[in-house]
């Protein structure tokens, strides 16, 4: 998919995640829209694109974050790379694949980021964070994934014939 289409799409997702979602869903448990799109695109399309989307989308999130720069870019890039791999190894029309993938990816994304922050000196209350934030977010992401997956599959049908990236 052309970067001229991807970058505005990631721009819009960044805006929704950092500006709109906090208004409608105040509190720590919010859907990770960028993560869902990266994982979803990896499962739907693969071919190494999800890693690119993850890196580019993560860079945009990093600009809005007070966390150490690169935390979102590198974690989303790594998860995108794993999702790309899944597309080549699993039958992608099975809806269970994106559901299981987003659940596990959410756990890895949040726990990985917390581990990196702890290594950098942040205090992490693991039990509280996992039970009050990570697990509810994973369930929320999984519940919303069919909707995102459906949109991404339609997008895939549109862009696949003139794939350039």
């Amino acid at each position, binding site marked *: 998919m052309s970067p001229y289409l991807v970058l505005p799409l990631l721009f819009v997702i960044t805006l929704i995640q950092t500006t709109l979602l906090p208004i*409608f869903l105040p509190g720590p448990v*919010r859907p990770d829209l960028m993560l869902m799109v990266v994982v979803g695109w990896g499962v739907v399309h693969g071919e190494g694109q999800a890693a*690119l989307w993850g*890196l580019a989308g993560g*860079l945009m999130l990093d600009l*809005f*974050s*007070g966390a150490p720069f690169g935390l979102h*870019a590198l974690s989303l*890039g790594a998860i995108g790379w794993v999702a790309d791999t899944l597309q080549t190894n699993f039958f992608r029309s099975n809806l269970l694949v994106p559901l299981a993938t987003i659940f596990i990816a959410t756990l890895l994304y949040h726990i990985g980021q917390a581990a990196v922050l702890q290594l950098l000196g942040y205090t992490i209350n693991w039990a509280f964070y996992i039970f009050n934030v990570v697990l509810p977010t994973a369930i929320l992401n999984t519940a919303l994934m069919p909707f995102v997956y459906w949109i991404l599959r339609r997008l895939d049908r549109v862009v696949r014939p003139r794939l350039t990236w």
Partner: protein
Amino acid sequence: MLDLFRSRTGFILILLALVFIGIALRATGNMGLVQDATFGVFAPVQTILIDASNGVTNLFGGFQEVNELRAQVKQLQERLNTAVIDSVRVRELEIENSELRAQLEYKQENPDYLLSGATVLQENDNRARVLSQDPSALVNYITIDQGRAENVAVGMPVITPAGLVGRVTEVGEHWARVLLLNDTTSSVNAVVQSTRATGVVQGQGQGSELLIMRYLPLGDSVKEDDLILTSGIGGAFPKRLVIGQVIQVRQRDTDLFTEAIIRPSVDLSRLEFVLVMKKFTPTDITTEPTPTAAPSPTPTPAATIAP
């Protein structure tokens, strides 16, 4: 070189290079130009989105929150009753205080006696709009639409009329990043209003809205429902800004200090507009009397044995 831009590996290398350049720029404090450009593009769109979403929220939010609002109304009514009683008592104390001052020909020399926030509110009508919240639940920052051009500087306290929100940690041309009170790296010197016991209020992070006040002296230094204010020690914040209210006290026999769990007076997850305190007189700690813990009962002097 063109091939680099056409291949996927080339793009990955470019993006990774950007990530590492970003890490280096953030570490050396030179990220300003990049973020100025970013917020220059994002901020107008964000403002439009926020305005549009406020309309939608007003339309549909009311239906969803009726039950919640009813409970809140009941709770607020109870708090209002308590506040009315308190205000009467405070008024009485003010009158008494004023009479005593007059009798002693006391001259108030310290202009900082009043809440600094009041002055700031008068001087700075321009409220800063909250543009975005941190995408990670692990760190608690907001981005506001005022920056260097509006004379905002790093370290300035950020408040709402309800109390303290946090402080500015990063400033761009027309944006600033604010570290919220509930972030784990936030630390504010505070005082218990009723006992004048001092401690440090820190965030618990990881999505918790509650704060924790540490290093309080053992004993009756704090109790539930006590108000926690900034102490002004250290000069980072003015004195007597409301931080929150104690909801739980933790004290074990083996501990060296008491801890208190505090609910912030400001709902940090629903911030829309904030005020940046651009001017306040920091507390001069060389002339400030050392705050002490709750006055303990005076021990009975030992009987003196006459020679």
